[in-house]
């Protein structure tokens, strides 16, 4: 029913082909869509949307399918519109530090493309070697280095979006201060509820003069958390500062070739970057703080290869859990940075109480926790109980004034928790935005909002 638009080979309806699209990175939940289409152009996307609307089918946008909250989880009877064939780099404007790309372009490929010119794209989610920029826009993706450099929303200046009506609209601008409402801020992080983005203009940055990486181990997460607080209090803005607890270190060592010690309670991996003279000064200041707090060991990578290996270890941490547990549930919550040590103790108590091992690997600099609840899916109701433990962690985050998601999104997974962070009036206000873009609610209709809401006709009220 879409083959005339995208070609038979890009219109998937056979059960075997559809299986691939039954879930995203949230693999525990699967729904088979009615059809998957892979358009190549903005025009094809628009025609697919119009066709889906004519047939009353819900539309689920999909990038690389690496999302961890079910944002690309199909809905019964839906058409999944995937952007994996839209991988063209359309324009690079070096002087303006802007690049226009199609949404299926892989995050890391942007930086690879820019590397010979001495530039890079800052947001670096751990999945950056496979995730798409369109998916990053939908989720407002961050990554380890967003502590200093910000999120997708700080690095995307303009978008081409196809609305539910099939209209193609340019929003934002590569030029500063575009007139009117900042619609890019509405679309970035809207989790595929407002339309399908078919072009993205990113802002890229000059590579820093120098980067220094420091790895330190501690007797427990208490000292590691305290080290993070003191480094920040000293006026240092690390590019990234990541914490791993003993269980996370064990998994990473098992899965990769990093030679990290196994007899420690926690480790920090920190980057400082910028002006060479300043990087030296701040790295030495940070090392002095680490020593004062009682770091067991402090080391710097000998060369760029070892540095890359350390970061590969960190970025592969989730997948590494497979080495120490048959299954794991990834949680994503945020707490005020100064509460890290307290919250980690609460999570340890929860682990002891519930009997589930919980590994912690997270962006300590901005309080973005990623507790991994380890379980065995073959054993009775462990899967459900692990999920309950993970949800308990979200309650702790909200209790400390944090957030139910720092970067993985609400999607299908956390819609039910939105009411814990926001009141009905807050959600209604967000719903205004959705209705302004798509009063038909054709895009990802069951996601993000905890309960269905109608878009009453307010446009005619004036």
């Amino acid at each position, binding site marked *: 029913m879409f083959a005339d638009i995208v070609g038979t080979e890009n219109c998937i309806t056979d059960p075997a082909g559809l299986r691939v699209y039954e879930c995203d990175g949230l693999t525990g939940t699967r729904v088979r869509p009615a059809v998957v289409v892979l358009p190549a152009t903005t025009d094809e996307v628009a025609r697919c949307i119009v066709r889906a609307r004519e047939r009353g089918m819900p539309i689920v946008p999909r990038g690389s399918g690496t999302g961890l909250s079910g944002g690309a989880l199909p809905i019964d009877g839906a058409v999944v519109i995937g952007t994996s064939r839209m991988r063209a780099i359309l324009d690079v404007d070096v002087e303006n530090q802007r690049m226009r790309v199609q949404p299926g372009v892989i995050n890391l490929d942007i930086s690879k493309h820019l590397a010979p010119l001495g530039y890079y794209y800052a947001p670096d989610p751990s999945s950056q070697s496979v995730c798409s920029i369109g998916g990053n826009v939908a989720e407002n993706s961050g990554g380890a280095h967003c502590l200093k450099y910000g999120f997708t929303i700080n690095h995307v200046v303009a978008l081409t979006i196809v609305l539910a009506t099939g209209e193609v*609209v340019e929003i934002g601008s590569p030029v500063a*201060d575009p*007139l*009117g409402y900042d619609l890019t801020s509405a679309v970035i992080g809207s989790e595929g509820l407002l339309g399908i983005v078919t072009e993205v203009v990113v802002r890229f940055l000059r590579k820093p003069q120098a980067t220094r990486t420091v790895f330190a181990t501690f007797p427990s997460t208490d000292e590691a958390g305290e080290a993070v607080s003191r480094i920040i209090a000293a006026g240092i803005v690390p590019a990234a500062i990541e914490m791993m607890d003993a269980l996370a270190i064990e998994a990473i060592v098992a899965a990769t070739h990093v030679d990290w010690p196994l007899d420690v309670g926690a480790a920090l991996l920190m980057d400082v970057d910028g002006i060479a003279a300043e990087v030296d000064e701040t790295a030495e200041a940070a090392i002095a703080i680490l020593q004062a707090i009682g770091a067991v060991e402090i080391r710097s990578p000998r060369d760029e290869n070892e540095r890359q290996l350390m970061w590969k270890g960190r970025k592969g941490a989730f997948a590494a859990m497979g080495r120490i547990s048959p299954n794991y549930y990834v949680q994503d919550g945020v707490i005020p940075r100064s509460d890290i040590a307290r919250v980690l103790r609460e999570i340890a108590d929860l682990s002891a109480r519930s009997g589930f091992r919980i590994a912690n690997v997270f962006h300590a600099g901005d309080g973005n926790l990623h507790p991994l609840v380890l379980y065995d899916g073959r054993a009775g109701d462990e899967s459900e109980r692990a999920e309950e433990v993970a949800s308990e962690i979200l309650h702790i985050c909200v209790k400390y004034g944090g957030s139910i998601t720092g970067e993985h999104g609400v999607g299908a997974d956390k819609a039910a928790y939105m009411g814990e962070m926001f009141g009905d009036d*807050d959600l209604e206000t967000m719903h205004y935005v959705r209705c302004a873009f798509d009063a038909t609610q054709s895009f990802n209709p069951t996601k993000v909002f905890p309960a269905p809401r109608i878009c009453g006709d307010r446009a005619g009220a004036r």
Partner: protein
Amino acid sequence: MHAPASLDEAAALLHELAGRERTVGITGGERPGGPAAVAVDEVVSTRALDAIVEYVPADQIVTVQAGVTVARLQAALRERRQRLSLDPPVPERTTIGGAVACASYGPLRTRYGTAKDAIVGMSIVRADGVPARGGGKVVKNVAGFDIPKLMVGTYGTLAMIGTVTFRLHPLPAASSEVIVNGCTLGDLRSLVHAIIAAQLEPSAIYATYDATGYACCVRFEGFPEGVKAQRDALLALAKRDASEGSLEADHERARAAGSLQVKITVPPSAIEELHAQAVSPLYRALDGAHAAIYPTVCAAFVSGEAGDGAGVLSALTAARTFAERSGGNLVTLEAPSMIRASFDSWGTPPPSYKLMRALKARFDPKNRLNPGGFVGGL
């Protein structure tokens, strides 16, 4: 003028005004409405909403009410050696709510971006008098649509800003400003290229104009060794008359003196033309003119007195035509009524205007908040 003393009072007031279908202008200062200065039935001032609600230095997060001035907030933060990296003009009178509603910024935009880049949460009072929140008080948060960032630069047309939560930065331990004199915009463009090529990381670059040419100020901030290294590097690569100093007073006049204040943005490729097509003609047409340029942002600011207006109008029209043709725009941030009567403050609405109208219709269905005060009569 109403001046509610709490957010509850503000909500009750806006609810009552909604019931009576009164049009409402919101202001942190003397008059509401932003550039277009449209007439409204009721004016709501945020001057009594002047509390710093919560400041947690360890988290580098502050929540303030809309009526707190930028200067007062910065003074409070300075005591804990932190700052909000946003420096709109006239900080003594500019309120946080005003700076956010007008998306106002200063030279620190070079490194730190706009209000949007610093905001992590917000509470608003909607047109119907209902209070609502978005975001939170942690730097990283993707729960729900980003209402706080959407509110930046809406000029009081979607809702009243109640409180704003910002992420903060450490106050730099050292700072140095280098002035490079006698530049054309071509020289400025080359200077920016050289700074980028040398991987320097200035926190601010701005230039002021005085009819003989541009003087460019490059500010470095951070730890002493890095600041010194960058200053020395710049002095070496400037290849012309350069020295330490400051252009703050000239810059402030270009940003905030005069009854006509114009902002022009263009892409970097048009920056050399920006002088001949916009800055120079406006500078000559205005009495007591001042001008400044942020070369990395590619924004120009010209201010002065419009006199009888005739020459000014043609200069404004020509400059806008140039700016819009290059992909940018020209906005009159302040203008005497005589100019406003025949020259639209905003210019041609963008291609996404229909979506903007739809958004306005959802947030303010009876078109009561600063009606007609924004782009294309939004």
